[in-house]
């Protein structure tokens, strides 16, 4: 069992700055947990506390059944991959991989066996006798991953491992690391992974679950699909998804029949009864209305009138298969993702003109303006 639990973990630096504010988090055995957030959100600090590279100011961290607060990094059963590879420059790849095992006083034959096994898995066997400075970025990062695997740790820690690679290499390494995790898990080896990144694509594609952090607080922990569909607050809604969710101010109006409406300046949009029920807002309350760009479409003749907004086309961005259409609605900006075929048919010369768009209210979110919480879940 190698589940990881954080209980009320805090980190206060000597200068009094509180970086982590009593976070609680459970990472299940074998799970791939991605911690994501903007820079300075303390995701790396959290990982480093788990690794034992930073002292914990309060709370408890458990790996399996052991509280590791006061254990040295080497006694925690972890292995870590760093952003800048952190390979030992004076050792060959083989020595780099075997260094941890050598310190653990394993027999030479066993070290060789483990090193060769890991090298094969990561396809770095031909590189074994090279020095780190003779490796490309991608190769060096594979060696760094290999160094982690060789130790057969109970928990793998990754600290922005792909940030130094170019976009293409990053995509292939992403797949490789995911596959590796699946393979370890399938062969019943310990595979619990904590992966820190600021890149939401990595988070969405790799994680079993994602922990979104901001300013030392956990904003939401859930599966990638749920984070996208049901963001708990404005921050998560804005952070996950590209282009980001549209968020505009609106006045919430309750009707007597149980349905409700949203007023954008002088325009009204209806919300059906079922959706209205889930919204916890007062009559006439100013709320933040959130809708993802893919749920805004050009209105057709069949579109019910009460779900139409009229806006001015400000800008068109061609993405190839689709266009990002930027609209100005009641002095607020909205972005819609519209397939190229439709844009070419209706919107090519539409810049500066008014168009009617249909909002798929079923998929919208309503956030409280003060608390920024999602009040429509």
């Amino acid at each position: 069992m190698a589940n990881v639990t954080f209980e009320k973990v805090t980190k206060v630096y000597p200068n009094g700055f509180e970086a982590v504010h009593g976070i609680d988090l459970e990472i299940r055995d074998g799970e791939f947990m991605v911690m994501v957030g903007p820079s300075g959100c303390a995701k790396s600090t959290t990982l480093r506390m788990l690794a034992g590279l930073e002292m914990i100011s309060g709370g408890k961290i458990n790996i399996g059944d052991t509280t590791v607060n006061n254990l040295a990094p080497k006694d925690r059963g972890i292995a870590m991959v760093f952003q800048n590879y952190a390979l030992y420059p004076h050792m060959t790849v083989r020595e780099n991989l075997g260094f941890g095992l050598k310190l653990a006083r394993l027999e030479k034959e066993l070290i060789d066996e483990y090193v060769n096994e890991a090298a094969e898995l990561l396809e770095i066997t031909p590189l074994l006798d090279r020095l780190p400075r003779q490796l490309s970025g991608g190769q060096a990062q594979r060696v760094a991953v290999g160094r982690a695997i060789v130790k057969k740790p109970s928990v793998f820690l990754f600290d922005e491992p792909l940030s130094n690679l170019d976009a293409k290499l990053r995509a292939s390494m992403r797949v490789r690391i995911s596959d590796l995790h699946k393979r370890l898990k399938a062969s019943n080896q310990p595979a619990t992974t904590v992966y820190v990144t600021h890149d939401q694509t990595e988070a969405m594609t790799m994680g079993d679950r994602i922990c979104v952090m901001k300013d030392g607080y956990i904003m939401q922990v859930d599966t990638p699909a749920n984070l996208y569909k049901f963001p708990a607050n404005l921050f998560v809604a804005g952070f996950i998804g590209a282009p980001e969710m549209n968020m505009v101010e609106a006045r919430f109006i309750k009707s007597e029949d149980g349905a409700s409406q949203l007023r954008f300046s002088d325009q009204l949009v209806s919300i059906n009864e079922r959706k209205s029920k889930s919204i916890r807002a007062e009559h006439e309350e100013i709320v933040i209305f959130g809708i993802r760009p893919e749920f805004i479409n050009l209105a057709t003749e069949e579109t019910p009138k009460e779900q139409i907004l009229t806006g001015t086309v400000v800008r068109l961005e061609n993405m190839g298969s689709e266009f990002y259409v930027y609209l100005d609605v009641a002095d607020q900006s909205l972005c819609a993702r519209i397939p190229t075929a439709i844009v070419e048919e209706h919107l090519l010369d539409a810049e500066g003109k008014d168009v009617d768009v249909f909002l798929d209210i079923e998929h919208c979110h309503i956030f409280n303006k003060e608390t920024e919480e999602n009040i429509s879940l």
Partner: protein
Amino acid sequence: MAGENMSTVSAYSAMQINKEVKRTLRKERINSYFRYFVLILTGIFMLYPLAWMISASFKPNHEIFTSMSLIPKDFSWDGFINGWKTGTEYTFGRFFLNTFMYVIPKVILTVISSTIVAFGFARFEIPFKKFWFTTLIATILLPQSVLLIPQYLMFREMGMLDSYMPLYLPMAFATQGFFVFMLIQFLRGLPTDMEEAAMIDGCNSFQLLWYIIVPILKPAIISVALFQFMWSVNDFLGPLIYISSVEKYPIALALKLSIDVTEAANWNEILAMASIAIVPSIVVFLIAQNYFIEGVTAGGVKG
């Protein structure tokens, strides 16, 4: 018509460009002549004394101060042969050995102690670290001669006079602030990720120092060793104060010994031995040259 015009224009501009290129090349050539002239002149100025010393050691004594020429009129090995014998019962070889008797322990102790102390300063949190670091810098600024009398009294009490111990024992305690400072600056320029990776791999502090820090610090450590070697071989004041018996004299004192004699000094012998005396430093420098230069610049730039 238009095509013709175009080609005329391009031919004209090609000529202009050619002219411009030629002018730039000429300017650069003149510049480089001037540069080399100044450099060579300065080089001659700086190397002349050294060349004079070596050439003088091949001249008979009477010729040394009478001619400016670097080429001896009466070439002779006498300076070397007689100089090696020295005016004492020992040959110059003995003084060479004596020098190494304290220089080698001095270099080894300096390297070990400075590395450990620099590692401590650069990587560990210790109470009042700033104060200790300031103290370290202060010792660099302190003139060595200020310490001579108290140190002499201390070593006298410890019964270590007329031995090499006072010359190298202090080095075991990282007393050469400059070297510690140089290594600290080098270490500060290194990212700590590697050390953290090593800690996760299972290193304790000493293993970290031995397996990771020392190999990475190698250029800086070699620079420290080289500096210490050269300065120690050239050190005159230290041995002068602590060494009293001639049989323990190092090169620096032995050279002075030859000048001390009451009759006119045999300058060709002294200069011949001086020429030999600089050989170890030059040899050691040439062997470690690449590392030395890398170390000096790395320590300086990264700090």
